[in-house]
């Protein structure tokens, strides 16, 4: 029976507890939050016996084998290190750390101590992502991907979350180097990184503020992001994060002989062979094949629902379960460390271009100017030395 602890008792902790409860052979022994009342409310609702406001005290009195850290990212590095020093394996919510440097240091530290870590990239383990991975491995693409596209949308409609973030420059989200993007985009980037080389040779970033966000009144927060990436072997990738496009969370992979689209919202995996049809058949057969694909997906989803495999939180449960299995020595860690680090490096790069580089600063100024002249602001920059070094190391 694995002994589990949770640090940080906010909204995400509830999701973790729900998922852990569905996994056999593990038990939540304690929870901890700097704010004891928060820890208490979680304990009370889920009948967990021990709650703490001090991490060291929790570690020492309940000896958890695994600690889930679901606190704001600024605290991830220090808390994870503390748990690793104590000898616990660590599940760190996304974004893994604030910078890639911290991510590398943590992973190295964990490995030296023979401990395991994972990042909260739970959307990598949804049913459709598992199926996409299976197809890619089975060779459906016909080789290394030529091009990838990851779309990640985030609805600002419910302002109970963004309202306080936008209204308060001291909010922890606003203090992240990548602000709103920093807290959200790692899911969408992790999907690309899985299929990219370690060495990224080009990263072009453009970001701006949507008119909706402008109306909500936070000047310096950007919420529309596009990134174009090329790796060493010339696989290209497009990342699109948008608050204006609604309900679009997709990964599209284009290979030499086929393409696959995994839709995280619809739970579908649509395959398409790259083949030509004679004459007018090109107008009849491909749509029919697409229709068949969607029908197949709908029936798979119904069957999975009836068999209780389709669960809204499937990805998180699957990731946690795989992580626990890796701890028990059966399998490798679910999210390869290479992917965690590359995601963090990519994020560093993106934020450097849009928020801190001189060039990006210009863009940022332009963001504030753009609305009067109607032009779209574009921040452009090739890969910097820092990324080249980190990519090749």
């Amino acid at each position, binding site marked *: 029976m694995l002994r589990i602890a949770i640090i940080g008792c906010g909204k995400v902790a509830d999701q973790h507890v729900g998922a852990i409860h569905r996994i056999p052979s593990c038990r939540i022994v304690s929870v901890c939050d700097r704010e004891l*009342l928060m820890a208490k409310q979680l304990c009370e609702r*889920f009948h967990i016996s021990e709650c703490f406001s001090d991490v060291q005290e929790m570690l020492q009195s309940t000896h958890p084998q695994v600690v889930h850290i679901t606190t704001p990212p600024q605290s991830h590095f220090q808390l994870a290190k503390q748990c690793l020093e104590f000898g616990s394996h660590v599940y760190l919510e996304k974004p893994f750390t604030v910078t890639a440097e911290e991510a590398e240091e943590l992973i190295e530290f964990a490995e030296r101590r023979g401990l395991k870590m994972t990042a909260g990239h739970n959307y990598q383990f949804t049913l459709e992502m598992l199926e996409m991975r299976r197809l890619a491995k089975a060779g459906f693409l016909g080789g290394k991907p030529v091009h990838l596209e990851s779309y990640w949308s985030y609805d600002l409609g419910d302002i109970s979350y963004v309202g*306080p973030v936008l*209204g*308060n420059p001291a909010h922890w989200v606003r203090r992240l180097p990548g602000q709103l993007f920093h807290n959200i985009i790692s899911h969408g980037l992790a999907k690309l990184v899985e299929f990219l080389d370690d060495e990224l040779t080009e990263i072009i970033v453009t970001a701006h503020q949507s008119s909706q966000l402008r109306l909500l009144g936070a000047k310096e927060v950007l919420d529309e992001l596009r990134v174009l990436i090329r790796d060493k072997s010339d696989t290209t990738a497009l990342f699109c994060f948008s608050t204006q496009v609604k309900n679009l969370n997709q990964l599209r992979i284009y290979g030499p002989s086929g393409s696959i689209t995994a839709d995280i919202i619809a739970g579908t995996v649509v395959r398409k062979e790259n083949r030509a049809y004679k004459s007018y058949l090109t107008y009849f057969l491909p749509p029919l094949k697409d229709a068949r694909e969607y029908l197949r997906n709908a029936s798979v989803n119904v069957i999975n629902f009836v068999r*209780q495999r389709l*669960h809204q939180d499937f990805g998180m449960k699957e990731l946690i379960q795989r992580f626990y299995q890796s701890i028990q020595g059966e399998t490798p860690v679910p999210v390869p460390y290479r992917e965690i680090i590359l995601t963090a490096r990519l994020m560093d790069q993106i934020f450097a271009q849009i928020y801190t580089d001189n060039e990006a600063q210009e863009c940022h100024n332009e963001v504030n100017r753009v609305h009067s002249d109607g032009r779209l602001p574009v921040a452009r920059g090739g890969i910097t030395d820092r990324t080249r070094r980190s990519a090749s190391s």
Partner: protein
Amino acid sequence: MTLKYIVSPADRILVTGSSGFIGVKVVEILLEYGFANLGCFIRPSSRLDRLKERLEQCPSGKNVELIKGDLLSRDDCRKAAEGVSLVLHLAAGMEKSFAGAFMNSALATRNLMDAFLEYGQPKRFVNVSSFAVYSTLNLKRGAILDETCPLEEAPQERCDAYGFGKLKQEELVKQYGERDEMPYVIVRPGVVFGPGKRDLSGRVGIDTFGIFMHLGGSNHLPLTFVDNCAEAIVLAGLTPGINAETFNVVDDESLTSRQFLRAYRKKTGRFSISIPYPVTCALCLLWDKYAKWSNYQLPAVFNRRRCSAEWKGNRYSNRKLRELLRWQPRISMDKAMEAFLGQFEAKSR
């Protein structure tokens, strides 16, 4: 005139949630009663159009101080509580997540009470709670629900994050009352309605898949018009001799769910289907059973506790409110409905 109240017009009064649906009215009524030394707590992201409009309309409104902050910050609470004699605490967590609701209801209240006790001149803390804290599981259909009714024991099982936050908030207030002798009063409004709030209460029914399902049948609704409710809150803050009392707030005249929906449909032309209580009950039980059996593949949002609390149907009393606070509704139900329906476009024929 003000001698009959526990605070004088010179005393500082703090209103939290002051830009909210009920808060704006509370501020307006306080000004009307002659209390202008007001601090209105707002968040930097709060929408202020309604509050500012009211303050501009009232001559003494210009003296009102808007205090920007977040009750989750102890510093902001201190800033707001300095020299305050009376707190009318309306801010609440409306989030769907338990943690979010708990934070903005219970945690925020704890911060505010700490600051009030340390930096204020506490004469009273009025905690605005809700009917969501009651459990009617053991109450017969049609029985009277009053201040003595049992509180919900299992809000998690009821899947009601808001109710959970409000219950924990009340618990803390009572604890501060007993432990720190903080003078307090609890006000529990029923369904507050009026211009500024377009959504129908869940007690009438639920809007799902584009259809409005009427679940309230011929149940009486615990309605209170926003002006009437706001005045009850103000009186709970001012009236002497009611320390540690709890007051339910409902108007004198009640409407059944069917009457309310009929008036609404007549105005808006919305389509609805009615589901009788036994069917609602059976569906809730079935949903709950499936949710548990399937390890929460479906969240247990429909369950026997919610079904009982929202759709079983009880009667409500405002006797205590009338007797101890000498409150009476300032707006009749006819006028209230007229004002409520006035915010909707008439249906096009």
